[in-house]
């Protein structure tokens, strides 16, 4: 049994293909909940979960408000909502103002996970063209959670990983394959 209650992933430009790859190469018995916050382009607001589910080894859902986080599932922040993890292990949503020009905001999801799970979560920052997520992954690191930043050299757009690296020092800097191996070896 792993010690971790959740894997929390943030990404923006370029991250969709990467998350797809990651979910498709997970071991089917991977049972730590995966919580994903990805920025979306305004014109492709729907269809994301469907496409992820075609290849994912675990079930991907866009959660409803107050949905309980369950093992063996991945949760994708719904378009146009911020997504938070509450203390009691449920997900809550909000449509409040954008943060870093984004809704969902990766900072919000990651910071709330750092409070709810403390050292028992893994935070991962992927490729992206925005600094959203840097504060969130720092919060996870500050609570002694395990942190991974995608190696900027392997990122389609390196602004997001670089912004994270500017404010914190992750446990690991990994390539996409490295991240997948890391997850599959967690158990």
């Amino acid at each position, binding site marked *: 049994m792993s010690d971790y209650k959740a894997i929390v992933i943030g990404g923006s430009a370029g991250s969709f293909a990467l998350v797809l790859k990651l979910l498709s190469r997970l071991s089917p018995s991977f049972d730590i909940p995966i919580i994903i916050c990805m920025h979306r382009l305004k014109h492709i607001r729907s269809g994301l979960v469907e496409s992820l589910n075609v290849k994912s080894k675990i079930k991907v859902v866009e959660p409803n*408000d107050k949905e309980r986080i369950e093992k063996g599932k991945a949760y994708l922040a*719904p378009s146009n909502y911020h997504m*938070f993890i509450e203390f009691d292990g449920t997900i809550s949503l*909000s*449509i*409040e103002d954008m943060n870093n020009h984004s809704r969902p905001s990766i900072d919000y999801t990651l910071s709330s996970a750092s409070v709810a799970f403390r050292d028992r979560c893994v935070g991962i920052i992927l490729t992206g063209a925005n600094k959203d997520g840097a504060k969130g992954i720092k919060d996870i690191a500050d609570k002694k959670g395990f942190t991974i930043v995608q190696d900027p050299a392997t990122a389609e757009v390196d602004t997001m990983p670089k912004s994270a690296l500017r404010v914190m020092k992750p446990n690991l800097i990994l390539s996409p394959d490295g991240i997948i191996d890391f997850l599959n070896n967690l158990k």
Partner: protein
Amino acid sequence: MDFKTFLQEFKKITDYDFCDYSENSISRRLQKICDETKMTFEEILRRCVTDRPFMGRVVEDITVNTTELFRDPQVWVSLFNTLYKSLPKTTVTFWHIGCSVGLEVYSNLIMLSELNMLDKCRIIGTDINPRVLSVAKKGEYAYSFNKYFEDNFNAVMRGIGSKSKFSDYFDIDEKKDQIKIKPPLLGKPRFICHNLVMGQSPFAYRVDVVFFRNVMIYFNDALQRKIMAMVYSKMYDNSFLILGKREDLPKSLKSKFISNNIFFQKAN
């Protein structure tokens, strides 16, 4: 003092009870109020005792008022083709709970106007926040900042096969950078200040359609259940309930509604 203690003290001083709001959202709102006023929780409480207008502003700043014209356009198109076409033939009463600055109310009115149904409808919008209600009554909004309202509007009109233009419903004043809803839509709805947490309903009659979108997400499970029970009691058999796109009924009420992906209907 942590935010939970603050909320308990605030409730004692003001009668406003935010103790059962979703923790993440409310704690960040409170942090924002502290940052902006440069005051601690203790200082805010002390000032609320003597300074009622200040207390009012704190209440207003606690609530999240984001809203838009025709949020989720495809939902409105589906409602047009289903719910709006099966409304009762007599007077229809609509209740928008947590209506904020009224854009959802006016979206509904535009639908009713498209269907020539305005005259037989009674529309009430309620919210805890008097500041947003006064904007709702005026029906005035910033223009360029909200350009996407027009995109949503056009998407809905396209979806329902209407030729209506944005300027049919809004006066656009480019100089003032402002849009204003036109009569007869302006002045049609009644806006009432009402706090759901008190548990009472704001009027004596029952309603045919309840818009209750993106308000319950700010409440925890227990409060959601309490408020939904009150709302349920205000609905007729077969009345409609529309929740936000990612909201669901509390478990205890699920069997009392028939649902599709777009709305809920009270079972008889």
